[in-house]
C-alpha cells in the first residue's frame, strides 16, 4: 500500500499549453487560439486600418473613373526560403505583378494561408515579415485574410493564396490580345534566375550556385513605362513555363507571329551553365521578377530608356519583334542565322542524359 499522502486541496487541472512555438490544429479551429494567432502573427505585422477593424471583409472606396483589375494566385513553392526570396515575397510580388500587367496600379491584396500542423511559429513570422516588406515596397496593403490548419504532411509547411485588386484608368488597353505586327518586344532582364535558384535550393540535383531568385514587384517599373508611352500594347510576366510559354500564349491570343533574336537574350552565365549541365533550355525556366512588353516600334527606344533608369529594369533589352506571320507561332533566329520554332513547354522540365 502506498505511503504517499493524497493532497486533495492542491489538485489543479493542468492548464493547456500556450503553443507559441509551433502551429497546432487548435490554431485553425476559429476559437481563442485562432484569434490570438491572427492578431499576433498577421494583423500586428500587416498593420492597416481595413485589417484592424476585425471584420471578415475589408470595406474599400472605389475610385471614380477607374476600371478594376483583379487577379489571384496560389503559391506552393518548396523550399519555403530560397536564395533571393521566400514564399511570402513570391506571393505578394506574384499577385502585384499579375494585377499590374494590365496597366493597373495595384492597391489591395488578400492572403489566405493553409498552415501545416507542426510549422514553426518562427518560420511563419519570417514569411509574414517578408510579405509586409514586399507589400511596402510595392506600396500595397494586405487587407483581408484567412487561416486554416491541416494535419501534418498535408501542406509542405505552408501554402499561400493571394488575390489582388488594382485600378486602371479608362482608355488603357494593355492585354495579351493587343500585340500588333511591327511591335518591338522588350524583356526587362535576365531569364531563368528564379527557376534555377529554387532548383539549387531544393538540392535534389546536387549542384551549388550563387544564383538568386529575381522575385520582385514590377508595378513601379510598369508605371514608369506607361508614363513614357501610350503605345504599350502587351505586358506579361513570364513565370511558370518561362519566356517561351508566355510568348506562345500572347502569339495565340493576338493571332500574330513572333520572331526572337537568340543573340539578344539575356542569360546569366551561371544560369546558362546550370542549364547546360541538366539539359534545360533557359527559355522554359520560371522567372518571378521579369516582364515582357510589346510596344509600338516608334516608342520602343523611349520605353527602353525609361526602364533602364528604373529599379528592376536596368538590364532591359529588345529581344525581337511581332510579325504578321506565321500566326500563333514563335520563331527564333539562332546565333548561327538559322531559324527554329520555339514551342510551349510540354509537361514538366526534366534533366536529361542524352
Amino acid at each position, binding site marked *: 500500500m502506498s505511503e504517499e499522502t493524497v493532497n486533495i486541496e492542491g489538485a489543479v487541472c493542468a492548464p493547456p499549453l500556450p503553443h507559441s512555438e509551433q502551429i497546432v490544429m487548435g490554431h485553425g479551429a476559429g476559437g481563442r487560439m485562432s484569434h490570438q494567432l491572427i492578431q499576433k502573427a498577421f494583423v500586428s505585422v500587416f498593420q492597416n486600418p481595413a485589417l484592424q477593424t476585425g471584420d471578415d471583409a475589408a470595406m474599400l472606396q472605389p475610385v471614380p473613373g477607374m476600371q478594376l483589375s483583379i487577379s489571384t494566385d496560389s503559391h506552393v513553392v518548396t523550399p519555403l526560403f530560397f536564395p533571393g526570396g521566400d514564399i511570402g515575397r513570391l506571393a505578394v510580388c506574384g499577385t502585384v505583378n499579375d494585377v499590374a500587367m494590365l496597366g493597373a496600379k495595384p492597391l489591395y491584396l488578400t492572403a489566405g494561408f493553409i498552415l501545416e500542423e507542426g510549422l514553426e511559429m518562427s518560420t511563419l513570422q519570417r514569411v509574414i515579415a517578408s510579405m509586409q516588406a514586399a507589400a511596402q515596397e510595392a506600396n500595397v496593403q494586405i487587407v483581408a485574410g484567412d487561416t486554416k490548419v491541416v494535419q501534418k504532411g498535408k501542406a509542405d509547411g505552408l501554402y499561400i493564396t493571394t488575390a489582388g485588386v488594382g485600378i486602371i484608368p479608362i482608355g488603357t488597353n494593355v492585354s495579351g490580345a493587343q500585340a500588333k505586327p511591327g511591335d518591338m518586344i522588350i524583356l526587362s532582364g535576365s531569364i531563368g534566375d528564379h527557376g534555377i535558384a529554387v532548383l539549387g535550393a531544393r538540392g535534389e540535383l*546536387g*549542384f*551549388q*550556385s*550563387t544564383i538568386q531568385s529575381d522575385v520582385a514587384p514590377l508595378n513601379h517599373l510598369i508605371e514608369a513605362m506607361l508614363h513614357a508611352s501610350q503605345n504599350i500594347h502587351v505586358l506579361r510576366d513570364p513565370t511558370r513555363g518561362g519566356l517561351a510559354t508566355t510568348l506562345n500564349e500572347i502569339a495565340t491570343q493576338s493571332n500574330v507571329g513572333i520572331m526572337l533574336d537568340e543573340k539578344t537574350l539575356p542569360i546569366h*552565365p*551561371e544560369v*546558362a*551553365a*546550370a542549364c*547546360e*549541365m541538366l*539539359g534545360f533550355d533557359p527559355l522554359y525556366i520560371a522567372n518571378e521578377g521579369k516582364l515582357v512588353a510589346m510596344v509600338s516600334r516608334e516608342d520602343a527606344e523611349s520605353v527602353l530608356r525609361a526602364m533602364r533608369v528604373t529599379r528592376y529594369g536596368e538590364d532591359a533589352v529588345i529581344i525581337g519583334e511581332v510579325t504578321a506571320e506565321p500566326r500563333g507561332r514563335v520563331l527564333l533566329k539562332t546565333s548561327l542565322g538559322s531559324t527554329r520554332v520555339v514551342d510551349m513547354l510540354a509537361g514538366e522540365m526534366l534533366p*536529361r*542524359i*542524352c
Partner: protein
Amino acid sequence: MCLAIPGKIVDIFERDGLKMAKVDYGGIFRETCLEYVPEAQVGEYCVVHVGFAISLLDEQDAMESLELLKQISDIEEELGKDTP
C-alpha cells in the same frame, strides 16, 4: 546517351572510398566522381556525364584546333572580299 559538359576541377577529395572532385562548370559547382580519370589534377578540365568524369579535356588540342579554324576563317573572309 551523350549529354556531357566540360568542367574545371577545383578540389579533389575522397568520399566513401571513391575519388571525388568539386567541379566548376562556369559558376555552378557539383560533386563529380573521378574514379575513371584517376590521374586528374586540380586545375584540369574534364568531360562529365551524370556526375562522372569520362575523359580529361586536352586543352592544348582544343586551343590549337580553334586557332587553326580562326586562321581558316580569316583567310576565307579575305578570299570572300576578293571574289568579284
